[in-house]
Every structure is written in C-alpha cells, then in structure tokens.
C-alpha cells in the first residue's frame, strides 16, 4: 500500500480495530456495544458456583486525560487541582512516558539558553523537586513510583494504569465516551466525560474521534519554513532504544544475540559520536517514511538489533578500550517515540513563530530546545548527522492555546508531541518539559470548561485571561505576559518592605514576573537570614491565603540524569536556594498572630491557607534555606 493510500484509509482502519472478543459498532453510543463473553464461564471450586465474569464498567468524570507521560500527568493534576473530577488513563504499567523506567529518556526542557537553563516551573517543577526529595539515589524505577505518588495523592484524580483508550464514541462532533481496554483485568471501560485531553503522543483516541491530523514533513512553502524540505514528504522522526552499562571492575565479555544487526561505523558522520555511550546512544534510532505507528513493532525489533550491534562494536571492535570492564545492565525494550500524528487545531505553530518569537495573545506555554530535527533514516542513514540542530534559540518562545485543541472535535484538547504544529516546530517543542507546560495549560483550560460549561475553543475566545492568570498563579511562566490577577490582594497593598535587601527590590514581588529574565531582575533577595517581608494595607482586608514563589534557581536543571551530573548547569540535589523554613503572620487588633509554620518546604510555590480573617498587615519570616545564605523570592500573593 502506498503511503497516500494508507492515510486515506487510515481512519477506516482505525475504526475497524477492535479488542479480541469484542464486537464494536462504528459509533453512536456505548449502549449499542455488543459485548459477547457468554462463553467465558468461571467455576469457583470453593463454593461450587458458576457464572459469567462481569468485565464491563462505565465510569463518569468531568475530564478524561489519556496518556500518562509528563504532559498527561500535568494535565490531569492541573485539572484535578482546579476542582474538576478527573481520570488519567495510561496504557503502560508505569507513569512517565519516555522518562519512565521503561524508556529512561532525560526529562529535558529548556536546558540551555546562552549557557543557562530557563527551567519550567509549575507542576513539572513540583514533580522534579518531589523526585529530588524521594529519590536521592536517582533510580528510574523509583521515579516511576514518585510519579505514581504524585498522581494518586490528588483527591480529585483517578488513575487507571494498563488501560488504553482505544476508541472514541461520538455524539456529533463531540466525544461522548472513550472505550478503554484494561489489559490486566480484561475489562472494557466506558469512560464518559465532558472534556477529553489526548496526551498519548500517538493519539489513538483522537484519531478514532475523527480529529484531523497530519503526519510527515511540510514543504518549505506551506509555512515559509527555512528548515523544511523543499517538498512535503512522509518522513517522521524515529524512535530510539536506550541502554545503560556499568563498570564491573573486571573485563567483561559480550556476545551479541541472534537478532543483533552488525554495526561497523564505516562512513558514519562525525557527529555520530560515542561520548556518552555508557548511558545510551540516542542515535540508535529508526523512523518511518510512512505509517510509523503501524511500523512500530517492526522498528522495535530492528532497534533491538541495532542496539546490540552498536554495543558489539563498542565492546569488540577494539576501538573502545575504556569499555573493557563495562557490561550492559539495562536495555530498553520499548523504543522512545518522537513523532507520529500531529493533530490540527485552530492554529498550527511553525518554525517562524518560534525563531521570530511571535507574541501570541493566547500564549500558555513556552519552549526553547533547539530546532533539533533528526535526519531522515536514523541509524539506517549514518552518513548524515543524527540531527541537524538547525537553530539554537537565544530566548524562549511562546506556545499558543489555539494549537492545543482540535479544530473539528469540539471537546478535545491535546498536549505533548501530538499538538497542532509543523514537523519543524515539533523538532523543538517535543521535549518533555515543554510538553508538560502544555499539559498544565490544557488541564487548567479543561477546568475552566467545566466551571462555565463551555468548550475548549470558547476558553480561548472568552476566558484566555482567566486561563493565563490561573496558570501563572499555579506557578507556570508565560514569557512576556506578566500576571495581573485582580483577585490578588497583594496588588492593592499600601506599603511593602523587607528587613534587608542584598539584591533586587521587595516591590518586585508585586510586578507579576516570577523569574529574572531578559536581563531584568524581578526578585527580592535578603541580606542574610532570618529575613522578613511585611505588607500593609490601609484598609482591612479579608484574607485566607498567602502564596509565595521562592527561588529554586530556574537557571540550573534539576531533572534526573543517568550520569548524575552535578555542575553549574545540572544539579543532582535539592536546590540550595529553596526556602526550607518559614512562618506567616497577620496583624489582628494590633497583635501579630501566627498563621502557619512550614518546615521542610518542598515546593517553589508555597501556600499558606487558613480560616478567613480580617487584617491590615501580614509578615513572612524566613529562617532557613537548603543551603543558601540569603533567601530569594519572586512573588507574593494574597487571596480571600
């Protein structure tokens, strides 16, 4: 079948796919599903009873998130925290997607802009900090459980693992239900929800809903993209299979398995280097010029062959004496995917939006990884560099909300690599922490949909300010969009002062910019500890929450790395700068009363919530950090 033919028939193929033993009608409602399992009769030896197992369940949520990678987790947590009953459906036994122990890709983001990180904040940072506290040993399997903990502790959030959303049940142009197969229980779930968010990467649910999408590379002319090929084609960047090795302290032999594909490195481009081979080689990659999803198992087998072929080359070619004592101690069996379906939204982000830093009125996320387009062919085209690294950003770019919902399915949002963008744009935005920011944005948008009983497009048209403000309140950063939340009572303060200042200005805590950026200081930093910030209002206010954004040094990366790198750019520990201990006070009838004490703080966004009281002044006393001599804040908010 030719590629074009495939894609013409793709939707039909997908609709016809079904789970073994189940006959599905093509659409309409879940009531029409015939679920014939009468031949499956159990016999209970203990009580002698017999019957047909009940394997059909219907559940209802306000928001259903499909895909448990960084984007999906952030979407689900954002939705749940904003008061929406949410389910997170993940087809693997673990959370984390490409960063899970099954795949072990570093959870990269804007790691490096002109020598420094511009690290993502909000939920993804909270996750990475949680990992720094719970997983000092930097174990990938433990990271799976850190993520599990992060999700299941949310009261509004239900997690379904080993569950794949296989088909959308439609009501007109709206998804009514997602049929989900849970492999471990043999159950078919019908998940009803008002809003669906597809963060699954490949986007099977969205595809079966009939959401428009494209695959392959746009031609140069369509979006005036410098780095696009002259003519459109079907190439999609490949998946990589990773591995890691350890030094056994003695020479270790290696014999490749039967399926290894011989690798010689002859004619390889010089950029195909082996600098980090101990922790995996990212250019062991196979893509597709056609149906990359359909090709997946074939490509997986090839990748396993290439992986062992390359390791054989490392171990047995004689070119790597440093590998003599190394042995593989983990090999992936699940390739880490980069690209497949890109769904169409009301806006398609393209190269120039990023390189020219287009200012979007509906910006909700950002990125800054380079335009890192891997070569067509992957390891099967070794004379080419593994990636072209077309363009390195000097500052971060915005990502608009209109690219995060479907143009033709009314209640469908996206986050991750499957959003509305060109192949070249994807080459940058596909990075996990960037996808996580999109996830938080759409999860928050879904909660606004639920709040006003509206659809995702209407959020963009009527409530974009509310979405942006909520995101920033929740510690997401939107470039060049200062927060101006009218509900923030700190904005109405009469006087603010600090007991000491070594850099910045305490008034910066009210300027709505929660990081130092574009060469401008937006912080206040104490001169020593303890430090105090006081706010005074001329008229009494009703207050129930004080929210701080403290320093976690967003210019240094904190994600877990296989090499446990610890230098000025990558830290393998809790940020020294973060506040550890602080107290909150309010002045009531002339007396300073304690509102709360936080010890062993673990987040950049610090909230102190209490029974509403009337006050004219508050004070925050900060006594300890995780190592820094001074405490640094970026924002202080007050709410009733």
């Amino acid at each position: 079948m030719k590629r074009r033919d495939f894609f013409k028939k793709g939707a039909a193929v997908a609709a016809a796919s079904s789970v073994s033993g189940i006959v599905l009608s093509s659409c309409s409602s879940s009531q029409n599903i015939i679920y014939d399992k009468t031949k499956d009769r159990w016999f209970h030896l203990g009580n002698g009873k017999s019957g047909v197992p009940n394997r059909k369940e219907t559940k209802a949520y306000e928001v259903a998130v499909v895909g448990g990678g960084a984007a999906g987790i952030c979407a689900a947590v954002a939705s749940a925290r904003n008061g929406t009953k949410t389910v997170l459906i993940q087809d693997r036994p673990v959370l984390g997607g490409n960063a899970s122990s099954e795949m072990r890709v570093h959870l990269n983001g804007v790691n490096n802009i002109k020598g420094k990180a511009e690290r993502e904040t909000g939920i993804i940072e909270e996750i990475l900090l949680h990992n720094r506290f719970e997983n000092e040993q930097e174990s990938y399997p433990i990271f799976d459980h850190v993520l599990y903990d992060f999700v299941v502790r949310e009261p509004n959030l239900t997690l379904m693992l080993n569950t794949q959303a296989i088909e959308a049940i439609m009501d007109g142009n709206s998804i009514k239900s997602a049929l989900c197969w849970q492999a471990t229980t043999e159950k078919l779930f019908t998940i009803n929800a008002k809003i669906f968010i597809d963060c699954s990467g490949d986007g099977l649910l969205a595809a079966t809903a009939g959401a428009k999408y494209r695959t392959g590379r746009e031609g140069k002319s369509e979006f005036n993209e410098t780095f696009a090929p002259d003519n459109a084609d079907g190439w999609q960047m490949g998946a990589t299979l990773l591995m890691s090795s350890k030094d056994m302290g003695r020479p270790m032999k290696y014999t490749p398995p039967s399926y290894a594909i011989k690798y010689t490195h002859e004619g390889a481009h010089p950029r195909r280097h082996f600098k980090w081979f101990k922790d995996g080689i990212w250019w062991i990659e196979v893509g597709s010029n056609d149906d990359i999803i359909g090709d997946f198992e074939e490509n997986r087998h090839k990748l396993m062959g290439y992986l062992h072929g390359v390791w054989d080359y490392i171990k047995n070619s004689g070119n790597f004496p440093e590998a003599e004592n190394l042995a593989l101690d983990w090999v992936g069996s699940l390739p880490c995917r980069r690209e497949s379906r890109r769904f169409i939204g009301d806006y398609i982000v393209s190269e120039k939006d990023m390189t020219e830093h287009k200012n979007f009125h509906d910006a909700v996320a950002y990125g800054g990884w380079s335009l890192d387009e891997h070569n067509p062919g992957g390891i099967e085209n070794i004379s080419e560099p593994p990636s072209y690294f077309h363009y390195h950003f000097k500052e971060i770019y915005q990502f608009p909300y209109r690219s995060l919902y479907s143009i033709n399915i009314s209640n469908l949002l996206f986050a991750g690599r499957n959003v509305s963008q060109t192949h070249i744009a994807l080459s940058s935005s596909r990075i996990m922490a960037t996808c996580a920011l999109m996830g938080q944005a759409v999860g928050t948008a879904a909660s606004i949909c639920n709040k006003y009983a509206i659809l995702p497009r209407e959020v963009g048209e009527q409530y974009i300010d509310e979405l942006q403000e909520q995101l920033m309140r929740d510690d997401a950063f939107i470039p060049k969009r200062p927060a101006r939340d009218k509900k923030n009572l700190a904005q109405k303060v009469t006087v603010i002062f600090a007991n000491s200042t070594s850099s910045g200005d305490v008034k910066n805590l009210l300027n709505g910019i929660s990081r130092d950026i574009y060469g401008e200081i937006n912080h206040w930093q104490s001169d020593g500890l303890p430090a105090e910030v006081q706010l005074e209002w001329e008229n009494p206010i009703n207050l129930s929450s004080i929210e701080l954004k403290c320093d976690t040094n967003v210019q240094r990366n904190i994600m877990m790395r296989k090499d446990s790198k610890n230098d000025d750019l990558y830290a393998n520990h809790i940020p020294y700068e973060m506040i550890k201990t602080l107290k909150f006070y309010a002045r009531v009838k002339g007396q300073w009363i304690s509102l709360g004490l936080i010890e062993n703080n673990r987040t950049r966004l610090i909230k102190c919530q209490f029974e509403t009281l009337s006050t004219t002044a508050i004070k925050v006393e900060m006594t300890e950090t995780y190592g820094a001599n001074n405490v640094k804040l970026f924002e202080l908010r007050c709410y009733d």
Partner: protein
Amino acid sequence: MLRLTISNKTMNTIKFLTFIYLTTLVSFVAALPLEKTNQYNLVVNHPGEKKAIEIVITQILNEEDFPVSYYMDVPSVICYEQVCKIIPVKLFWNNLGEYQIYELEPQSTLEKYKADSFEPKDYIKLDRILSNKHSPFKDVLYHQILTSPDDNDVDAVSGATALILDDEDTVPGAALGCYTLWHWANGEIVDKIKNLTGKSFSEKQLKDLLSEDKKHFFPVVIQELSKRNNYLNSFVELVIQKTLEEKILIQQSIEYLEKSPQNVYYASMEKIFIKGNENQKIHVLRSLMKSNYTLERPYLSRLSNHASSLKSLQEVSLFLEVVQLKNPVSEVVIKNIFPLLKSDLVIARSVYWFLKNQKTTVDQEEELKIFHEQNKDKL
C-alpha cells in the same frame, strides 16, 4: 617604550588601523613608573581550573610608594581539543583591580578555532571584552565553553547546547580564549588586588584618601581600617562623614563600626541615625537590634528625640521594635513618638498599636481613644 608587543608582522598590519587606539593604550602602560615593584604570591581560583592556582603578581609603586598598578602573567590560556593554543598573556590592572590592558610576548599571536590567526580587529575586540565587567562571560559556565559544535542537543542523553553569544561579545572562534582571559582579568584577582592595595597604604595615605575626594578608594580604605582595627577618632569621624555623603558605603561602614568599642559604636550609630537618610537610618536600627552591646536607657530616649524624622513605615516599625526590645518602658520615648499618630495612617496605626501596650498618661490615653474613634474602621 612599546609594551603591547604583539608580533612584528601583526603589529605592522594593525598599526595603521589602530594607531589612535594603541596610542591611548600604550601611553597608559608607558607612563607606568617601573622602578619600584613588589611581588606577591597569591592563590586564586579560576573557573577553568579544577584547583586553586598559585600565581605571582607584581605591584608597581610610584615614587611616593603609592601602589598604582599590577601585572601578572597568566599561566595558561586553557584549551580544549585544538580550539586554541596555550599562549602566555600579561594582564595589567590599576590599583583597584580594574583591568587595563593586555600584552603578548614578542612574536606571539592569538589564534582561533582551527588555527586561524586573530585578525587585527580581534586584538582590539579582545581588549574591549576584557574591559567589560558585565561581559556575558561573567555568567557563562565553563562546561558550556567546552561544548564543541558536535556536542549539540542530544535529547536522550545530554542537553548541552553549543554556546551562542552575540558577535560583539566574543571573538568568533576564540570564545574559550576570551572566556579564560576574561576570568583572569575580572575574577577573584580583583579583590586580591584591592586587598594588596589596601595593605600597602600607610596610615597617612589612608587618611589622605578619606580626606581627599577619592571616592573610588573609600571601600578599600574602610576595609583596611577594619582589618587594622583602627578606630582612632580622626578615622572614625572621617568614615562617618564619608558614609553620610556616599550612600553606597553604609553597609560597609556599619560592618566596620560594629567592631568598634562600645562607646565608639553607639556614638557613631547616633550620628548616622540623626543625619542619615531613610536607608541609613534603617541600617543603624537593624544594627542596634542585633548588637550585643548593652544599651543604656537614655540612648534610645535621645534617638527618640528625632522620631519625627522617621518618614517610612519601615523606619518607624524598626524603631518601635528596637524600643520594645531594648528599652520598652521609657516615658521619654513614648512622649516622643506620640506625634507620629499624626502621620500617614499606616504609620500612625503601627504607632497606635505600640502605644496601646505601653503605660501612658491619662492625657495620652485620651489621645489614643480619639485616634481609635477616628480610625476604628481601619485598625
């Protein structure tokens, strides 16, 4: 004497283009009296070196034994995979550790990536880069400089991106050399030179520098006085005077005065409090708050005579905190701060709440009642 001795060939090439520029530079160096020098062995850290390095720096003195400048041979320009060569470079600073000029050995040239030679304009640009205290190299990380173009983003294993600097901030192809030299010129050595300069001053020179309008030397002088534990009245008075004139000195001066004997400390704090601006008053009050010296009761009463000069809530709040902590039941203080009830509401309110907890006279009690009645909705 031509001390900017780049190779003859290079010099010939650049002579015409840079005549005026070099004349300026050379005149600085040529003017240096070279007769009197001192050499110092120091240990400094450099971000390109894993361990601290022992270096020798030469101090140049004028005829009056006044340290005027320094020079040092940079032991090596750190290189990586043929990006540049190791070339000795002599760097010059003034007596405050500010970079002035660099000098190469005769016949030496600087080179770039892939062995391209510096062009004439590159030498001038390098001097400009080294002169820029706020160069992007200040914040660039060493590992980033070491990232070669082949080490770019690798999404599976590393996140390194090749360093990208604007052309005006670096010599293209020689970023590592620029980085290394910038950190030699503007790194830890700056403070070391200031220390050497301060240490070299005689007592007379220290006093002269404070007496004369040599503002740039004030921090060095005050630091040196502190090190020498010099609290002679004549010096202390000069420091107070200069602190009141130069706002940026307050922190350093307070640190110096906090180490002085108790009587000197309190007298100094009082003078700065009375004559100082808002920020200076706040520094004094903060110092008083944490001081371990025993505060005599009349002291705060005297300070409270100037309560009306407190204009901001922070000053007033701090003052009240000091009073509460060090001298809580002073009739004089209470009397002196009562007029602050006429201030802006936020200040008056904090004074009101303070006074409510003090022992007051009947008249004062009445005044507080009136204040409460007038502002009860805003308390």
